[in-house]
């Protein structure tokens, strides 16, 4: 299915958010996730299923002022 990951269109076979994070090689404990603009806590990623056209954000610490 096609989803938007951090603003980029990608194809994925991941069924849920936890699988997507694993598949993409993200640092599971070091990132925070949101689905369609809503925060998804780490503990709920596995039960958060993905659907065609979903927008996923995966954020990590960066420089800031």
């Amino acid at each position, binding site marked *: 299915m096609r989803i938007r990951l951090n603003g980029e269109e990608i194809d994925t076979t991941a069924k849920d958010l936890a699988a997507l994070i694993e598949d993409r090689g993200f640092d599971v404990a070091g990132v925070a996730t*949101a689905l369609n*603009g809503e*925060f998804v806590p780490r503990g709920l990623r596995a039960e958060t299923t993905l659907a065609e056209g979903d927008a996923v*954000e995966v954020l*990590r610490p*960066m420089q*800031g*002022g």
Partner: protein
Amino acid sequence: MVDFYGRTFESRLLLGTARYPSPEALGQAVARSGAQIVTVSLRRESAAGAKAGQAFWELVKALGVTILPNTAGCHSVREAVTTARMAREVFGTPWIKLEVIGDDVTLQPDPFALVDATRALVAEGFEVFPYMTEDLVLAEKLVEAGCRVLMPWGAPIGTGRGLNNPYALRLLRRHFPGITLVVDAGIGAPSHAAAAMEMGYDALLINTAVATAGDPPAMAEAFAEAIRAGRRAHEAGLMEPTDLATASTPTFGAPFSPFAG
């Protein structure tokens, strides 16, 4: 000591972590300034899963300082609240420097969205550090919403123009004696920082003026010294300026004067 939501700190300088020429310059700037709190952001991981930024985060963790995450770049209540929730999970802190930008040219905060987002976040247990304009009524609303820290701008972010509206900043200080007040944004020189501290501000948040200096660690130290000097002057009690000259040398006993006794 300065108090942020019940936690006290010796240093009154909060440092941003962006725009340094190198990670070493950032590390040395924090060390030489004695800053105990640094600001960080959350940004998109590359979609390829490159774990970009991991080195940055490892460096910041190794500094052993307290982290103040921001919601920089958010333009709506929803974006800011979601980003704050994400930051709380990643950084493990209820602190959030709340930025909701209302104007892209000046990066002026949106006061209406700021109050709404503050109310939502306080209800969820966040301790909010709102990046705000120097508006007195906005400050009232934020305090009513639960803020114990306010962060009015000196000038737009990154401009280095200093304190654009010292009158309003003084009013805020007088109006909120029990609130921790931090000038955030627009500070360009240590003299600006000293001026804010002389007014009785509790702390300053500085990024660009240090990070883009020729020698960032030296500039960080200069800011720390200015902040200490300004604070000490405030505590010592500054004289009131007057329009007319007053001789500092006693007039009694002045020579060659028929009037001086």
